[in-house]
């Protein structure tokens, strides 16, 4: 396997600023208020329609802002072959909007022609690794760009797993040349759910490959034993523990830090609430940069 011929990194990427997931509820507000924000992100599948308001608004917002296209339906971790029709739709969407970044998930969502509309977990074994790498290479070849792969939030593990999630991700990055979308909320949720140390998890990732960060809120539940079970709900503000882990991750990233997205898909508040979270992420980035400057002077 090899990195794709055309490296998406050679094109200008997203700015290392805060961004917000674009929701139809906020289309008009964004165009009217022209917020100062680093970028917007869309779920690719929501815009795989022929015309109408979604394309009308996205086109106008795209003219003014940087854009990340984030897929939720490719099923890169799936046992089934990739859906070529879906790849064609993605290629058309990317061609139309020329986003600064494209990302997808380390997860599966389709099997045998059925789409399950959720990001489902994979076993971390050799067979899954070679399948995921083949799928990532195929996506990058077909779309002629480097993709970012997002670490999952999981509630379960597989008895068949033979390697740690971070080890698996590092190997995919190494073999395919893809980048990493570091979802800090997913790290926190997964580490609580599987009783791991989130800072160790972060340190075990190939942080040089991080091209973007996601932050979101979770919901709290418990398992049968009464231990915490966090749900990646995207329905609440970013938790303090996740902000802290974000700062920890930024300290360990390269000089350019990483574009950071606030994700919110449920109980969607007014746009300024999400904008304030994006600005909070920028403030943390600026704090890390200022700390580095002081260290350099000392």
């Amino acid at each position, binding site marked *: 396997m090899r990195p794709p011929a055309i490296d998406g990194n050679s094109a200008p990427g997203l700015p290392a600023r805060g961004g917000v997931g674009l929701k139809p509820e906020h289309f008009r507000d964004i165009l009217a208020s022209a917020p100062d924000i680093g970028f917007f992100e869309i779920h690719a599948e929501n815009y795989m329609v022929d*015309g109408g308001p979604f394309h009308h608004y996205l086109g106008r917002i795209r003219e003014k802002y940087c854009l990340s296209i984030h897929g939720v339906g*490719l099923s890169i971790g799936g046992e089934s072959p990739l859906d070529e029709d879906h790849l064609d739709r993605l290629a058309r969407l990317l061609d139309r909007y020329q986003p600064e970044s494209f990302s997808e998930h380390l997860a599966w969502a389709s099997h045998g022609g059925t789409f399950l*509309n*959720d990001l*489902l977990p994979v076993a971390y074994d050799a067979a899954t690794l070679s399948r995921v790498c083949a799928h990532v290479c195929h996506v990058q070849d077909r779309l002629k760009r480097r993709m970012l792969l997002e670490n999952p939030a999981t*509630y379960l*593990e597989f008895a068949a797993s033979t390697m740690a999630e971070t080890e698996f991700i590092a190997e995919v990055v190494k073999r395919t040349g893809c980048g990493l979308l570091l979802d800090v909320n997913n790290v926190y949720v997964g580490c609580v759910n599987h009783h791991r140390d989130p800072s160790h998890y972060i340190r075990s990732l190939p942080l040089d490959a991080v091209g973007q960060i996601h932050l979101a809120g979770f919901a709290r539940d418990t398992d049968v034993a009464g231990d915490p079970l966090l749900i990646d709900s995207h329905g609440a503000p970013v938790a303090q523990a996740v902000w802290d882990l974000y700062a920890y991750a930024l300290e360990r990233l390269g000089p350019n830090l990483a574009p950071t997205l606030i994700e919110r898909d449920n109980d969607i508040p007014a746009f300024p609430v999400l904008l304030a979270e994006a600005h909070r992420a920028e403030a943390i980035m600026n704090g890390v940069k200022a700390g580095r400057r002081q260290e350099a002077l000392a």
Partner: protein
Amino acid sequence: MSPQQAFADSLLAEQATCPPGLATWNGSDPARRFAVYRNNVMVSLIDALADTFPVTQALVGEEFFRAMAAAFARANPPRSPVMAHYGAGFAGFIEEFPPAAGLPYLADVARLEVLRVQTYHAADAESVSDEAIALLLAEPGRLPAARFTLHPSLRIMESHHAVVSLWAAHQGEDVDSALAAVDVAQPESALLLRSGLDVETYRITSGTAKFIRQLQVGRGLGAAVELALAADAAFDMAEALGLLIRAGAISGIANPEGEQA
């Protein structure tokens, strides 16, 4: 059976089951954790249907709707990651769903709501200019042979029930009194069309519905009028054509030689 096949089957099974091969750090029963995925999948599919079918839901209440949607989703999970058009088969399912048999109009209301989503996301196209319309109307001799390209968002529906009135009754403040005034047994036809960014829903006569269907399949104006009159003696061409023009439903006009205006 492959591991993902077993996992997928358990996600959609009506009775809570748990696929083999799962592990938890504390040795607790993985079924509770697997239930998170089961719940995510079913809730996301039911929510997607609730987004597409708000009036259908209002007519039966949330609890009934979600149970019916869950039964549909288990039997008809999505076949595509593009969820905008998920639920195209929901109306047919409702027709065969015994607990909904007491509401014979419900399936057609669902049909109307599916068409509204199609209209919302349909391809964009410019309407023909007022000048092109004026030019056509200035030469009545050309009219019978004229053929129209209709806007990609245009949809027609004919029902044995008062689907448009039922739908419209849910758009205002006082739904109950609006509903009380609807004679559900009254057959109605609908024209759906995007106007700017909004979906407009027009109640039309059955003759107009038949007329527009003929235009949709490429028949000339004269032939479409004849067929509409045969089906509905009260069909009024001026009214029907006037509606199409006012609504911006015509995106192309071809003369008998096939030249586009």
